[in-house]
């Protein structure tokens, strides 16, 4: 029989205001095996823990039940306290009487009754608890960063700075991400390239960092500290080590009509290309969809002119296996393609562009060499209309858009408007907004400058229709403050399209077993207190893959994720979860039902000798669980018909004891 101590936490008034804590302590003191029962104001406080430790010592407790907040909050705290007193931490169970009782019930009698029942269930479970010992697993001292945008770059640099190896896997031929496409940055208006490219060079030169460019994560196995990742290096038909990045091939390639995604397809590039001048690694790649040689076997110009002999038309995808202790998702975003918003004419009028397209049209390295020209006729636009919130802030039932605010559009639109007015004072710029959202250091001041100093026309209202007629974009819009419908003859319309997570993120999340919200943003372990960790151990989040962010926020979060990774990699051993599956060989039939449902391949079989009747020996196939690999989901326990497979800490009998206690009432 266990000797159980019960501790009821008041949580200040959080619990005690609704639950009669004294009555609960009294009621539970009569439960079988309970030798001590008390209540205390804050069990999680230092003095609360001392109270518990003293009781363990004085009453020789073998089990502890704390009736308090959610075990997700303080289970670890109480288990640690018990351990300090020599009690096995897994002899502690929590009854959640805050989130599940006091916070949701108003009637004191009802709440007190429920608290007693939950306490009883925890006591019933503790009766069957067994001391568990956590195993240890080693930590591979290398991190993987998925995505080489500014988020991934910053995370990798910070981890490398601490002396750990980092690999960056980037699906494009170069790192740099979206920031490389941006012209100027708010609120300081410094050039994105000036601040980004030095960082890219740092990455390239850092011995601890290895870049897998034009590569994708193919499969992830293992668990925190011990991930095994397959990386697909896509064939770029250029030998990375040989290419010097001279760029001669990209000038001589006869296939000139390849849309250039770096410039948002506003111009063309060759079939062999280096995405942009500052690319890292500065290695060419061949676009197999357009290369005449790869398609027809005739051409070979690039190969002929390459002095380094770097061209390899036979190159195949290559799979690299690497081991990591931690993985950071930095998969970033894309602007929503506004082809479902053709009331604005995006699909039919070339002069209706997205904000990122405008970035390229204003960038010195862009298709117009930095001169703002209309894509349709390459003339200078005089009237520009900006439309905010295209695809953002939509109703959940709206299938075209996203329910969230994309956060960055108000600021970059102010930036665009300001830059255009500064460079081309002869333009009129209208911004149609629902709200202008500028919470950030120096952000509202920035927006006010656009209005007051640069004379940008901010109009509270929306655009309803854009009609192209005789070279003009006839914009029909509302001005809610004047109550008018406006008709503006514009030369260009710029759509501030919603930010959406990169399409690859969903598949990566599945591989990482990291959870996502309905918008395909990665979910953090705790919205406030653990914002850069995924609920899955060893998986960290950096940048917009977790939610819309501007550059300063992305960089902060990237460094925060790096700090978490460093904390993990600094450890030599990780304590495993001791609540793992266990097979009773005497009962096991060796039928393989459990193996089929194990997501981790933690179950293996071997033939073992057993004593049969009359001194015979019988050989039987039985399952065993690799405790370092098992994560303790319990799928196997239900697949097992004989009940040989059970889960420590959540055994069949423990759960049934809880069921019995709850149903007894």
């Amino acid at each position: 029989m266990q000797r159980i101590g019960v501790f009821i936490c008041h949580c200040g008034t959080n619990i005690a205001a609704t639950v009669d804590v004294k009555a609960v302590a009294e009621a539970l003191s009569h439960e079988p095996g309970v030798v001590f029962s008390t209540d205390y104001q804050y069990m999680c406080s230092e003095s609360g823990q001392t109270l518990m430790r003293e009781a363990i010592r004085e009453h020789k407790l073998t089990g502890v039940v704390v009736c308090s907040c959610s075990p997700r909050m303080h289970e670890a705290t109480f288990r640690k306290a018990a351990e300090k007193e020599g009690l096995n931490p897994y002899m502690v169970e929590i009854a959640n009487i805050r989130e599940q009782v006091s916070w949701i019930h108003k009637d004191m009698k009802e709440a007190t009754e429920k608290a007693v029942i939950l306490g009883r269930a925890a006591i019933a479970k503790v009766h069957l608890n067994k001391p568990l010992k956590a195993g240890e697993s080693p930590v591979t001292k290398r991190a993987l960063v998925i995505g080489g945008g500014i988020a991934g770059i910053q995370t990798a640099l910070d981890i490398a700075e601490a002396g750990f190896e980092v690999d960056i896997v980037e699906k494009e031929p170069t790192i740099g991400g979206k920031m490389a496409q941006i012209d100027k940055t708010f609120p300081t208006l410094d050039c994105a390239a000036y601040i980004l490219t030095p960082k890219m060079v740092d990455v390239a030169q850092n011995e601890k960092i290895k870049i897998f460019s034009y590569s994708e994560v193919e499969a992830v196995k293992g668990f925190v500290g011990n991930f095994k990742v397959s990386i697909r290096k896509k064939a770029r038909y250029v030998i990375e080590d040989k290419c010097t990045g001279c760029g001669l091939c990209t000038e001589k390639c006869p296939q000139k009509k390849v849309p250039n995604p770096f410039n948002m397809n506003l111009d063309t590039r060759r079939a062999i290309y280096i995405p942009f001048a500052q690319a890292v690694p500065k290695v060419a790649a061949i676009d197999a969809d357009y290369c005449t040689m790869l398609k027809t076997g005739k051409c070979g110009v690039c190969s002929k002119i390459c002095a380094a002999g770097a061209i390899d038309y036979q190159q195949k995808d290559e799979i690299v296996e690497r081991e990591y202790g931690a993985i950071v998702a930095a998969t970033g975003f894309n602007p929503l393609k506004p082809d479902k918003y053709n009331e604005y004419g995006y699909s039919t009028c070339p002069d209706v562009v997205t904000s990122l397209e405008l970035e390229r049209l204003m960038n010195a390295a862009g298709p117009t060499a930095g001169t703002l020209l209309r894509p349709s006729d390459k003339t200078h636009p005089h009237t520009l209309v900006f439309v905010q919130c295209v695809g953002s802030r939509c109703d959940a039932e709206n299938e075209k858009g996203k329910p969230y605010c994309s956060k960055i559009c108000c600021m970059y639109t102010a930036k665009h408007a300001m830059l255009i007015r500064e460079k081309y004072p002869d333009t009129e710029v209208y911004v149609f907004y629902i709200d202008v959202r500028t919470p950030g250091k120096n952000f509202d001041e920035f927006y006010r400058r656009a209005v007051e100093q640069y004379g940008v026309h901010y109009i509270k209202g929306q655009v309803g229709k854009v009609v192209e007629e005789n070279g003009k974009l006839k914009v029909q819009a509302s001005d809610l403050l004047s109550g008018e419908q406006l008709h503006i003859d514009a030369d260009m319309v710029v759509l501030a399209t919603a930010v959406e997570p990169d399409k690859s993120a969903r598949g990566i999340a599945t591989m990482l077993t990291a959870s996502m919200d309905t918008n395909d943003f990665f979910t953090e372990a705790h919205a406030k207190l653990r914002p850069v960790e995924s609920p899955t151990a060893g998986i960290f989040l950096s940048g917009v893959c977790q939610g819309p962010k501007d550059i300063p926020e992305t960089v902060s979060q990237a460094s925060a994720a790096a700090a978490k990774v460093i904390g993990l990699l600094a450890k030599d051993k990780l304590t495993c979860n001791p609540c793992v599956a266990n097979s009773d060989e005497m009962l096991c039939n060796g039928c393989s039902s459990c193996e089929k449902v194990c997501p981790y391949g933690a179950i293996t079989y071997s033939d073992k000798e057993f004593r049969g009747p009359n001194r015979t020996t019988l050989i039987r196939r039985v399952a065993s669980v690799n405790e370092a690999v098992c994560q303790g989901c319990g799928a196997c326990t239900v697949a097992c018909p004989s009940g040989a497979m059970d889960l420590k800490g959540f055994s069949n009998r423990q759960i049934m004891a809880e069921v019995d206690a709850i149903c007894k009432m």
Partner: protein
Amino acid sequence: MSHNKNAAKVEQILRSYGVDVRKCMRCGKCTATCPAFDAMEYHPHQFIYMVERGEVDKLAASPSIWHCLSCFACMERCPRQVEPAKLIEAVRVAVVREKGQNHLKPEDVPALLDEDLPQQAITSAFRKYSK
């Protein structure tokens, strides 16, 4: 009109309408898109707001409700699925259901016709404007 009577009327309109007016985020895209804007005294985003504020009488008395073209453009383009055209119809229905409030009377019709006018125009006018 007493407060209660007004509340009943609002409730009736909201029932016919079947959408939650509080979904509106006041972006004004409905009004931006409305082809009948010039003919109206109140505009689609105002319809929503006025119903939310309980000002249905003002709305019911306004000629604006008869100018809606039922082109569904505001419904289609609303980012919040507020469907202003439905609300306008709900108000119209509430008005024509009140005796003697038919907006279009049969005796007025012949004067409006020409030889090419399709039946559709007359039928729809009756459907929309009378009980």
